[in-house]
């Protein structure tokens, strides 16, 4: 990975992320957006993150893409704890404990 690529990504992401945050606070001011736009935007995070996580969980790079019981269990525990407790930190801790326990027991 060369430093030109890295800096291109950093600078474009900086400008783009700021743009996404500024677009309405800065430019729209107190005018309202159409409801159908807001309705789609409400599902942005939940539309992107699960799709991002799914292949990483099912086909981890560390096992050369082979599905791994410890990692699947850890993923399930993290998701369940996050869902039921709404506690981000607790979900991470429980997921990590499950992963290490799985890797220790199953190798």
């Amino acid at each position, binding site marked *: *990975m060369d430093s030109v*690529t890295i*800096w*291109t*990504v*950093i600078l*474009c*992401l*900086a400008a*783009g*992320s700021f743009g*996404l*945050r*500024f*677009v*309405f*606070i*800065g430019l*729209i001011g*107190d005018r309202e957006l159409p409801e*159908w*736009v*807001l*309705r*789609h*935007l*409400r*599902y*942005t*995070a*939940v*539309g*992107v*993150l*699960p*799709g*991002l*996580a*799914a*292949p*990483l*969980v*099912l086909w*981890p790079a*560390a096992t050369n893409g082979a599905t791994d019981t410890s*990692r699947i269990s*850890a*993923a399930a525990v*993290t998701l369940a*704890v*996050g869902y*039921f407790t709404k506690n*981000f*930190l607790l*979900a*991470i801790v429980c*997921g*990590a404990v499950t*992963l290490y326990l799985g*890797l220790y027991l199953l190798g």
Partner: protein
Amino acid sequence: MAITTTKTAFWQGFRDGLPFVLVLAPFAALFGVVATEAGLNVFETLMFSVAVVAGAAQFTAVQLLSENTPTLIVILSALAVNLRMAMYSASLAPHFGPAPVWQRALAAYVTVDQSFAVSIARFEREPDMTVQQKLAYFFGVIAPVLPNWYLFTLLGAWGGKSVPPELALDFAVPITFLAMIGPMLRSIPHVAAALVSVAGSLIFTFVPFNMGLLIAAVLAMMTGAYAELWFSKRERSDG
């Protein structure tokens, strides 16, 4: 306690933001570790956190960079993860709209999941707050978080090289995403959108340059929006 002055608004925000340090400091340290493992140097890693200030997008970018994805796709994928910031921006605009533009620009820079969520809840609870009090509160929430975001990125980047592979840190990234997804599944439309996102990203893996993720995301957002519309119509006809 009701907020009465700009100064009390800031310190109330500061107190409300303090617990997030516990969550975001390890997250930042993890980014420092993952980014240096992927081949970024310490300064590049720190600048990533300073310039982008969005954990999930930073992890996405570094993950894709390490897979030698074309630069444009890295940028578009990470920005897709950050699209929710536009929603936060739209939601905050009516509260900050009348403020001077430099204050709104500063507010935009520090808009993250946590500062948005805790502030919008407070503004809805206390509609009598003035624009200046709302901004002071918002900056108060982020004040304890942001310096630690930078600091712990740096500490993670410095310590990163000494992390052994047995720690399975590769899996820290999906675990972090899953821990964020769990609390987001608040309603049936949210769950439906998440399921479409997973199915879409697995089905569209054949699409080059990770564009499958973007296709999956658009389908998931449409699913969420239509499911919400369907449920609210049904509620209305029941009521």
